[in-house]
């Protein structure tokens, strides 16, 4: 396996520095929220990791479709990389959200549209990994997981809509009903967008590493098959 390319090495360091910077910005630059207090600072990272989770989810769906069109196994590696990153980041988003929700809503968890949708998304990814585990032939594994990702990515938005009919208590930050009445100060907005950008860079770095790992795993598998013959 080739050593890490220079760009990736630079990205490693840049990601670490940016993460530290975003942390410092959330802690010391952004003002303390009047009503919720210091716990509100969790919000900057909660939004950012949820954003990365969505990015990975989209990337997985797109990679799945491209795989079905091209039948090139490298897109399967891309897909599973995106899925794993999404799985972890959504889990972090849920954990951070719970930390914030306990003082803000008085409970760690509530069956609210976004929370429920996030939980179901996690279940779909776990199901996908289980599906992959019980298939040995790489070509079939790639085909089935592309199909399942496709089905899942269509089902998730409908899930969100289906639960949204009941009233939501999750704050809407961006979009209609957003910034105007959430009363965020400009420093807070700036911190949020910086941490979104920072986590997007971190996503790229991790994605790259995970794709490299997938390529190595494929090589190992091929070498093993060769040894068995």
């Amino acid at each position, binding site marked *: 396996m080739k050593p890490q390319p220079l760009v990736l090495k630079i990205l490693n360091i840049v990601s670490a520095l940016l993460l530290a910077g975003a942390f410092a910005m959330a802690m010391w630059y952004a003002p303390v929220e009047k009503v919720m207090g210091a716990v509100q600072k969790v919000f900057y990272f909660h939004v950012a990791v949820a954003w990365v989770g969505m990015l990975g989810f989209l990337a997985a769906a797109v990679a799945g479709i491209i795989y*079905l*069109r091209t*039948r090139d196994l490298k897109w399967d590696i891309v897909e599973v990389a995106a899925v794993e990153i999404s799985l972890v980041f959504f889990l972090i988003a849920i954990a951070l959200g719970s930390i914030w929700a306990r003082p803000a809503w008085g409970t760690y968890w509530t069956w609210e549209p976004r929370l429920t949708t996030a939980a*179901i998304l996690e*279940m*779909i990814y776990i*199901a996908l990994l*289980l*599906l992959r585990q*019980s*298939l*040995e*032939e790489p070509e*079939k594994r790639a*085909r*089935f997981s*592309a*199909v*399942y990702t*496709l*089905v*899942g990515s*269509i*089902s998730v938005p*409908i*899930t969100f*809509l*289906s*639960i949204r*009919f009941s009233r939501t208590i999750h704050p809407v930050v961006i979009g209609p009903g957003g910034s105007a009445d959430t009363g965020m100060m400009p420093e807070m907005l700036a911190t949020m967008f910086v941490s979104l950008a920072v986590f997007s860079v971190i996503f790229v770095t991790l994605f790259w590493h995970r794709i490299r790992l997938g390529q190595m795993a494929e090589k190992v598998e091929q070498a093993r098959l060769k040894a068995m013959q």
Partner: protein
Amino acid sequence: MDDRPLTADRKSPSTVRRPSSGYLKAILAIAWKDLASELRSRELLSAMLVFALLVILIFNFALELDVATRGAVTSGVLWVTFAFAGTLGLNRSMAIEKDRGCLDGLLLAPVDRSAIYFGKFLSNLAFMFIVEAIVLPVYSVLYNVNLFNPGLLLVILLGSVGYVAVGTLLSSMAVQTRTRDVLLPILLFPVAVPVLVAAVKASSGFLQGLAFAEIAPYVNQLIVYDVIFIAVAFMVFDYVVEE
């Protein structure tokens, strides 16, 4: 089946041309084959039915279905029962095809592969309807609720169509894996959540006699789900069964 050599046309199976005449006939033939063999063996329907009744029995103790709670949870109990019994049927109906090599025979038939999907879809749907047609009156008698509400029947029709549409696709995937029977519910339930949520909400709306305007969003959602998932399954079924 897995070790067959790659064929030249596997790159994009959707472009493979097959004679399309008698498409409907092929669908009906596959559905009829399943119904006829079921009529003789009765192994699938009896298992689904007994299982469905046992689920209701267990709910009776688990939820203490007295008069007060009954009104609120009836639609939930019904849909959980249908979903569980449905999984059992979906699994079995695909496993039979796989175990006896029948699926390979079907794939060799000179019909479009989506005809196989729609044939299996129809027969699975028929099994589901038969189970529902027996469970509903039994539940009505046991718990003294009138379930013969045209709205509720419509919801059950729409909900079953959506559930079986995804279920048939995913079960044809699950039977080809190592863990097969265990895998289907794990794959199916998270994807089928929207259909179950909408079906439960719409059913309880009809049972409580709400105005149709309040139930309409859920009914619309069931229709949307049915259309989208039948279309998706139609498009990707080729990829699932190709060998």
